[in-house]
């Protein structure tokens, strides 16, 4: 179209460019969307969701791959200080997978909540301790189908799915649980995770 048209060339050249980095991120988002929609969850197939929560609560902290060993260790749940009113499951969900470098990444993710009574807190601990999480991290990564992505991108993508699955698990444990920060009553306040090992998200050689 308009092969010899100078005006057409001017108009075509004016198209704002999108960087290769942005396209690469978009490809990861696209692959992640399939992982989420196809149901990598150990909780069974679920309705496709896109707007998964990365860290939905005020108190949620992602500590994967922190740079300083000291700061990292101080911040690892469950030792990390929580703000008043925020609770965290005593049992973490294991998220273990082999990354693109062939290294094992061992993360532990914790559900955080507000206004849960003792029975509800116990239920959250129980669901986090469930056998369904065995092999979970690798299943998530495999379903994302991002073998060429770097360790950081893989970790980010995996934990995005984990975020949603923790919400689904918490809601299963505590019927009526809300993720609306303005709601009264039991609320899902977010999640936190730490990835252990000398390599953090790069994993252990």
């Amino acid at each position, binding site marked *: *179209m*308009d092969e*010899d*048209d*100078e*005006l*057409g060339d*001017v*108009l*075509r*050249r*004016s*198209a*704002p*460019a*999108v*960087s290769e*980095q*942005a*396209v690469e*991120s*978009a*490809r*990861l*988002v*696209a692959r*992640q*969307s*399939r992982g989420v*929609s*196809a149901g990598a969850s150990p909780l069974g197939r679920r309705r*496709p*969701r*896109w*707007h*998964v*929560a*990365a*860290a*939905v609560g005020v108190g949620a902290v*992602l500590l994967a791959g922190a740079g300083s060993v000291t700061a990292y260790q101080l911040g690892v749940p469950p030792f990390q200080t929580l703000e008043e009113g925020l609770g965290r499951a005593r049992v973490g969900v294991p998220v273990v997978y082999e990354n693109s470098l062939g290294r094992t990444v061992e993360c532990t993710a914790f559900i955080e909540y507000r206004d849960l009574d003792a029975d509800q807190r116990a239920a959250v601990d129980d669901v986090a301790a469930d056998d369904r999480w065995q092999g979970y991290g690798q299943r998530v990564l495999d379903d994302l189908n991002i073998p060429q992505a770097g360790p950081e*991108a893989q970790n*980010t*993508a995996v*934990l*995005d799915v984990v*975020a949603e699955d923790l919400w689904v698990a918490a809601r299963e444990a505590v019927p009526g649980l809300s993720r609306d920060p303005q709601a009264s009553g039991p609320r899902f306040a977010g999640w936190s995770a730490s990835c252990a090992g000398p390599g953090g998200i790069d994993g252990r050689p």
Partner: protein
Amino acid sequence: MGAPELGLVQAAIEANTPSLLAYFARRASSEDAADMFGDALLVAWRRAADLPADAGEARMWLFGVARRVAADHRRSQRRRSALQDKLVAELDAGKAAPTEPTDDQARAAIARLRSLDQEIIRLVYWDGFTLAETARLLDRPEGTIRSRHHRARQQLRAHLERNGLPRAPDSARATGTH
């Protein structure tokens, strides 16, 4: 949703990711573009059974989804995945890159057009659609799109020439006749 449908959707999304992302990024803020890109993917997965098998038709279908998503999009404070946040940052970085004065003038000229004409020009020259395809995407008669395209070009030429761009012979040939 069966495995063959999933495979078709995946292939269509992978083939069209750069152009879909560019479509949103050229029409909205980085935040909205990332949100709409995600929304469009969700709709694509949900409606996998409707995806045409032909690659060209699949592209048209995906952009139809994208247009509806863009039309329905409302800004909101929403949760984004960390990867979407990264995408927003990279789109922002790209928009901060210096641009050619000629390109800025052309974009400014396009922005002066009526909204439908702007979209015609963008679909044809930025997204690479023919006039016939543009008519389908905009759900307008092809003749209407051709005449509006012709008139929009005249306005763009006049504006750009007033601003010192070299005079370009307009073949006045409608684009996308193939």
